[in-house]
């Protein structure tokens, strides 16, 4: 069996921001019983024994956890590569220095747009200036810096200026990720989905920027899967390379897998190794045995693994179907309809976006 390379540790779902594209679950109040420091420490040890080499510290906002510095130090002692994924709200110069001293390897800071008014509107709170200060701080401390930007209808046309901002801040990498429709983004899909014309323009700008910045800044552009012919190879295959631990200790093959109707396993009851190897959730879609047609006899089945199980479930109600993003899927019409609405339907405005709120319950 493959061993996982990376673990996404979602330390908390608390967050001072309200991004309407947030991929976190809607029922955030189910996650208040967070793992303790000691529980996370045990999870880190078990993860390393299982083969995990990279630790992605995320959330919610990981800086909300008071034991973050301690956990980073423990992870480094275990030999893990530590990556902080943050909104930067709460990253004071002092905390940054403590994280640096604890051995944090890499910092990714998200921003909502290239200019304050729009960025703050999307984030639902004043945050732009603090983020810019944090980017500078990270560079000053000598960390490799990645700028993360989630793309959607309301910022895609500014991609050129977003790239300029990353260049000005001397980011080593920029991840331009078209919105994936999970959690709050799923709820806001109609207002987030861009038009084909927007995407075509954006891709041209990305191509030009790649040529111009080659060797200087790495540009990762995550294509919008609704507009692709084939689905994404979600998580590099189910239970194959990655795992996610949620704030309350549930272990998932991908951060969206809490939506599936399968029994969940938690580190509070089982070892990480048992969950990875034996739990029904991880076994259910591992490999190619579970696949229906057209995947079963398709020569891309080990390339994209039939796409995303959570997306299949969301769109068809059955997680074991081919991802409807695939043009070969019998359900592809569902995606085409959404795309058509984004291109021909009534123009949706920012006012249609529902902000993410920590206390919200599932509706």
């Amino acid at each position, binding site marked *: 069996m493959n061993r996982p390379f990376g673990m996404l540790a979602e330390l908390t779902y608390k967050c001072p921001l309200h991004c309407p594209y947030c991929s976190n679950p809607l029922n955030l109040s189910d996650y208040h019983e967070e793992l303790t420091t000691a529980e996370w420490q045990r999870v880190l040890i078990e993860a390393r024994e299982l083969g995990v080499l990279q630790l992605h510290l995320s959330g919610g906002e990981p800086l909300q956890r008071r034991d973050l510095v301690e956990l980073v130090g423990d992870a480094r002692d275990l*030999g893990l*590569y530590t990556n902080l994924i943050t909104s930067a709200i709460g990253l004071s110069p002092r905390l940054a220095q403590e994280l640096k001293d604890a051995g944090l*390897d890499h910092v990714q800071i998200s921003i909502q747009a290239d200019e304050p008014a729009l960025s703050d509107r999307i984030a639902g709170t004043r945050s732009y200036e603090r983020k810019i200060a944090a980017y500078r701080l990270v560079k000053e401390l000598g960390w490799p810096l990645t700028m993360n930007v989630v793309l959607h209808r309301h910022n895609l046309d500014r991609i050129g200026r977003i790239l300029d901002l990353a260049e000005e801040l001397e980011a*080593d*990498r920029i991840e331009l990720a078209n919105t994936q429709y999970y959690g709050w983004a799923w709820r806001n899909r109609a207002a987030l989905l861009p038009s084909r014309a927007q995407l075509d323009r954006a891709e041209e700008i990305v191509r030009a920027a790649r040529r111009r910045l080659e*060797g200087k800044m790495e540009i990762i552009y995550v294509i919008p899967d609704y507009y692709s012919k084939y689905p994404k190879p979600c998580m590099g295959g189910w239970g194959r390379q990655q795992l996610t631990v949620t704030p309350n200790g549930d272990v998932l093959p991908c951060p969206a897998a809490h939506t599936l109707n399968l029994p969940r396993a938690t580190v509070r009851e089982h070892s990480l190794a048992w969950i990875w190897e034996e739990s029904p959730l991880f076994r259910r879609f591992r490999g190619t045995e579970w696949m229906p047609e057209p995947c079963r006899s398709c020569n891309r089945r080990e390339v994209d693994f039939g796409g995303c199980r959570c997306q299949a479930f969301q769109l068809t109600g059955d997680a074991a179907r081919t991802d409807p993003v695939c043009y070969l899927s019998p359900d592809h019409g569902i995606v085409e309809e959404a795309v058509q609405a984004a291109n021909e339907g009534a123009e949706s405005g920012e006012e249609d976006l529902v902000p993410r709120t920590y206390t919200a319950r599932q509706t």
Partner: protein
Amino acid sequence: MSTGILSTNRPHLARQVRLEWDPVRERQVLLAPEGVLVLNQTGADILGLCDGERTVADIVEELRGQYNRVDSDEVHDFLARLVAKRWVELGDE
């Protein structure tokens, strides 16, 4: 990007990556922001010599002391791939 690697370059690991021993896989691994490279023995030996002091020619020379056959093109290709990912940087010529 097939940047020509010169024999006179003095390669070193980029600031953002780390070389570690993985006791689980019993291999040297190169850890980077969004990727892991599990190295074979030769790859590990090459990277172990990328200290910013030795030139590529020096590295090939040292490997020849360890292995019967060392293809200098393969060393160049291996380094070129990592340079393209910005995991290895080329020092001065």
